[in-house]
């Protein structure tokens, strides 16, 4: 069982509310999304493990059991090519759950015309394996969902 933490503060939403069909239709995997608070913040690792992929706008942490969680900071933010994001860790780093990985500003993403909502996805999981914990407001590091 893996407890997945909120990588950012905001309001927990169902993935289907994300304005990108890749996430809302569960094509990447099941999970939840967070409508982030519109202020500068640091996105943290949702689980303990190794950062196997680190882009400024998205990262994947894999736990010791091989389970990977994707955190995507905003929608279509790959187009920003890292502008407005500061990477605070390195690929291959071991991180604790709750450890800062990327600094960013959701307000800036929104001002640039993009949606700052953050999908948090259990990779290679079936939908039934994910049970929502958070409903409504979450702080960074709060429990978001359980992956059984």
């Amino acid at each position, binding site marked *: 069982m893996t407890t997945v933490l909120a990588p950012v503060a905001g309001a927990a939403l169902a993935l289907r509310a994300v304005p990108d069909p*890749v996430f809302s239709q569960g*094509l*990447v*995997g099941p999970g939840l999304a967070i409508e982030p608070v519109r202020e500068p913040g640091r996105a943290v690792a949702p689980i303990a493990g190794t950062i*196997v*992929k680190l882009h400024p706008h998205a990262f*994947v942490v*894999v736990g010791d059991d091989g389970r*990977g969680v*994707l955190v995507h900071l905003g929608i279509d933010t*790959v187009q920003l090519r890292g502008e407005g994001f500061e990477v605070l860790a390195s690929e291959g780093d071991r991180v604790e759950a709750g450890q800062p990985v990327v600094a960013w500003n959701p307000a800036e993403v929104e001002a640039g015309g993009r949606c700052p909502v953050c999908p948090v996805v259990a*990779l*290679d999981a079936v939908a039934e394996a994910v049970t929502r914990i958070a409903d409504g407001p979450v702080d960074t590091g709060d429990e978001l969902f359980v992956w059984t």
Partner: protein
Amino acid sequence: MAQRQITVESEVGLHARPAATFVQTAAKASLDVTVAKQGGQPVNAKSILAVLALDVRQGDTVVIEAEGEGADELLDALALIASAP
């Protein structure tokens, strides 16, 4: 073993939408399918984690392989997804 070599044309590489579509298509098949960067270790093409971690960028060449009945049709479908701009 059927094989295709494809150059990835998508601006974002094999991430996000192309990666999800690629893995979903591979996962529907009963065959084992692998994808590798040219010269690299093959990974399970049915795993979104494995495909995202492979980090295929625009312009990279990938090798996809499958064996068994329907391998050619499956690889053709995957090649189409991977090569789409």
